[in-house]
């Protein structure tokens, strides 16, 4: 089969376009949080994980310390390590490919790969989505940062509202069940209650501890919240949901 006819490559590239586009919002929000163009680009090129990048600038925008921003970003990135274990079994990359595969291990590439059953298609889907998102995400991050720097007062354009909307958009696909929703509500309430009493950024880390305790006490099925937050195969008859 030719590469251009591969269903996994098609899915991977279309998800790359959709995801890459919202690099615009990351770039603009990052600049309004106080990062410059190159700091914003460093996050998209090197950290390269949407949720963690939004977390980092979200804490900075709220006046939190660098350490709080780092911690929130690192904790949100744990799932990428879990994805890495799954993909290592699935794709078995060797040598330098392992390094490259690790860098493009994100929600989108995992969802595209695990939605395929044929090992060749799994591999193609992973690389198409991973590299596709990487290229477009970085291009649109740069455009968003330039745009954000050009428009002046971010509040006037509702960019602070865009940040709240972005985090709800990242959370939404993960709270389909009752128990994940309960975890989300408890953590949101704990965060708001903590805001007046501790320095900015710390309430988010308190919520992470509460969430870990809830998880340890057995709330929620084993995989809730750990599925990639995208489903590239919403209506396909011959595809499987990401595991």
């Amino acid at each position: 089969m030719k590469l251009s006819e591969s269903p996994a490559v098609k899915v991977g590239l279309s998800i790359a376009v959709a995801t890459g586009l919202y690099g615009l919002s990351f770039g603009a929000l990052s600049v309004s949080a106080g990062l410059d163009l190159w700091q914003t680009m460093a996050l998209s090129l090197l950290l390269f994980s949407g949720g963690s990048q939004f977390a980092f600038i979200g804490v900075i925008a709220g006046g939190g310390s660098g350490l709080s921003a780092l911690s929130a970003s690192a904790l949100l990135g744990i799932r990428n390590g879990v994805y890495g274990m799954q993909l290592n079994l699935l794709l078995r990359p060797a040598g330098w490919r392992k390094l490259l595969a690790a860098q493009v291990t994100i929600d989108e590439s995992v969802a595209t790969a695990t939605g395929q059953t044929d090992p060749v298609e799994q591999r193609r889907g992973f690389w198409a989505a991973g590299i596709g998102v990487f290229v477009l995400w970085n291009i649109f991050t740069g455009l968003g940062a330039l745009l954000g720097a050009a428009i002046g007062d971010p509040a006037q354009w509702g960019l602070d509202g865009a940040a709240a909307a972005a985090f709800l958009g990242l959370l939404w696909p993960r709270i389909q069940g009752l128990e994940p929703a309960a975890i989300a509500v408890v953590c949101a309430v704990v965060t708001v209650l903590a805001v007046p009493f501790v320095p900015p950024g710390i309430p988010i880390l308190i919520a992470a501890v509460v969430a870990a305790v809830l998880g340890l006490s057995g709330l929620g099925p084993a995989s809730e919240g750990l599925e990639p937050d995208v489903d590239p195969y919403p209506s396909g008859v011959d595809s499987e949901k990401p595991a």
Partner: protein
Amino acid sequence: MTLWGWILAACLVSMATKLAGYLVPTKLLDNPRMLRVAGSVTIGLLAALTAVNTVAAGTQVVVDARLAALVAAAVALWCRAPFLVVVAAGAAAAALARLLGAV
């Protein structure tokens, strides 16, 4: 440490986390407790970040135009709008609320 320092540190941690997944023994994946904690922490952090970015201003809890943004985003998500539309709806709602006199 400067902001640049924290940014590069966060990048290093992210790259190390991803690579660690490819290097650790796969037996770790069979631990349901570990997976459950990682999943609930992801949910908890995103919920906390949503809350902070909606009502926190430094160490104060305030109700302002960002609440309108959150409601608009929820409506957009309910209608299964794509992510970029959700973010745009949030921005538009906050800008509109300010235009109408909200802080």
